[in-house]
């Protein structure tokens, strides 16, 4: 039987079975007039409260000289310092979230660290549950170059102009690539999310867009050089847990017991249906060895429930359990 014929036959079987699939009904719940009126009243009350709070806060800040003086780093130029140890002082991430979401483990991530290391992304160790950072040593001079380029682009300045689709690509076209730049300096972390470089071209003046594009190309070039692949110590592991309501699965291999003392049910919620925690201290070694010994799809069992997990080693200074747009 030819491959062509097998594919045609296989397709017919798939269609025959799919015709039996659970097909949910459709129910439309329309807003009633009373409900609309209720929403309008609540919305008006919220707006009124926000306006009052804004006026009160503004008056309080203006009247408090110390408060104004304490605004961090407003006029201070950022200068890289080699004394900052292993903590990243500049972090620029280019996360291609398409077509996956959330996909930070999958897309390219460039994190520039002060000590001259460029974290290219997360590498899935073959057939294991643990992802580890993939690191390229690029040198301090290049770090300075990136910092200057990022400052010239002024990434934080256009944050507020981002199309709201960036918050959830599936609400727009399902396949738009978009990048999130997280730019951290001494004043804090700033974010720029754009649907794609074409969108950035519309948002940025030509000159700044050209610099943004150059920066992207530059980072990608350095990452691809990859001649000095380094490694970072695994001293913190982010574990995301997707919880099931029942034990049992049609596809999963045999489960292993949940390895942490804290039950899954007590872990902080990341988004609905997913919990997330950052493991530190003595548990890290045990957890790392376990995750590296398990096949990728192994469920973890806790209190008669099975859980799918995604684990990755965090880079120094990375908080972990952070939402893509956080």
């Amino acid at each position, binding site marked *: 039987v030819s491959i062509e014929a097998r594919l045609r036959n296989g397709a017919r079987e798939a*269609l025959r079975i799919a015709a039996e*699939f*659970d097909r949910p009904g459709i129910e439309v719940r329309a807003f009633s007039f009373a409900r609309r009126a209720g929403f309008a009243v609540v919305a008006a009350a919220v707006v009124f409260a926000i306006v009052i709070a804004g006026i009160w806060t503004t008056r309080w800040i203006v009247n408090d000289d110390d408060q104004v003086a304490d605004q961090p780093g407003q006029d201070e130029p950022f200068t890289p310092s080699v004394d900052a140890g292993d903590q990243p002082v500049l972090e620029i991430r280019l996360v291609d979230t398409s077509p996956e979401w959330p996909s930070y483990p999958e897309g390219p991530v460039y994190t520039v660290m002060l000590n001259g290391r460029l974290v290219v992304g997360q590498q899935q160790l073959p057939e294991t549950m643990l992802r580890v950072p993939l690191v390229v040593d690029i040198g301090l001079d290049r770090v300075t170059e990136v910092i200057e380029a990022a400052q010239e682009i002024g990434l934080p300045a256009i944050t507020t102009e981002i199309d709201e689709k960036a918050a959830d690509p599936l609400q727009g076209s399902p396949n738009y690539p978009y990048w999130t730049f997280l730019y951290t300096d001494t004043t804090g972390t700033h974010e720029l999310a754009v649907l794609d470089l074409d969108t950035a071209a519309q948002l940025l003046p030509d000159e700044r867009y050209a610099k943004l594009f150059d920066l992207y190309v530059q980072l990608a070039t350095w990452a691809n050089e990859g001649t000095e692949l380094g490694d970072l110590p695994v001293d913190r592991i982010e574990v995301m847990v997707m919880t099931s309501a029942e034990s049992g699965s*049609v596809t999963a291999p045999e489960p292993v017991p949940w390895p942490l003392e804290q039950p899954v049910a007590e872990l902080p919620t990341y988004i609905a249906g997913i919990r997330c925690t950052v493991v530190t201290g003595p548990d890290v070694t045990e957890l790392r060895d376990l995750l590296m010994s398990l096949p990728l799809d192994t469920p973890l069992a806790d209190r008669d429930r099975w859980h799918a997990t995604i684990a990755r080693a965090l880079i120094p200074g990375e908080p972990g359990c952070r939402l893509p747009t956080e």
Partner: protein
Amino acid sequence: MRTMVTRLDRDSPIRPGQERFEHFYSREFTTVAALAYVLSGSRTVAEEITQEAFEAAYREWERIGSFDRPGAWVRRVVANKAASSWRRRAAAVRAMSRLPATAEQQSGLEMSAEAVELWAAVRSLPRRQRQAVALHYVDDLPLGDVGEILGCSAGTVKTHLARARERLKRDLGTLGGEA
């Protein structure tokens, strides 16, 4: 049985000439579900992914329904969801939570061993190749339409299919055929 529930404003009619969602859903469901089935390898996960895709279209139907080919939009969502390990796993977890409700339906038709082997081999192909194979054979779409969904040219789809068939021929140890 699940029910898609969406708040719709009665004052937001579909546009003139736009197909009603119910008709679209009824016509496209089986093919889209089969696509999800072969790409995910799991009936339970496929049901979940298919429903998610149609729910997404339902919420935005006024806009998506105005596209020339809203079916391509849904297929792209399903192809991406089913090909993503994260999404497959998330869908599996959600589906697991409803296992008791769906257990009775699992006793329905099953694929033959030969078809199971075939689609497992397809899922081991590179992402674009397996998506192209599923869209071309399960959905019976011409190369241009597959390219529209995957965001590439018909020529690229043809290359993906040729490479996929070569690899399948090698992996399954059977004779290859012509497209």
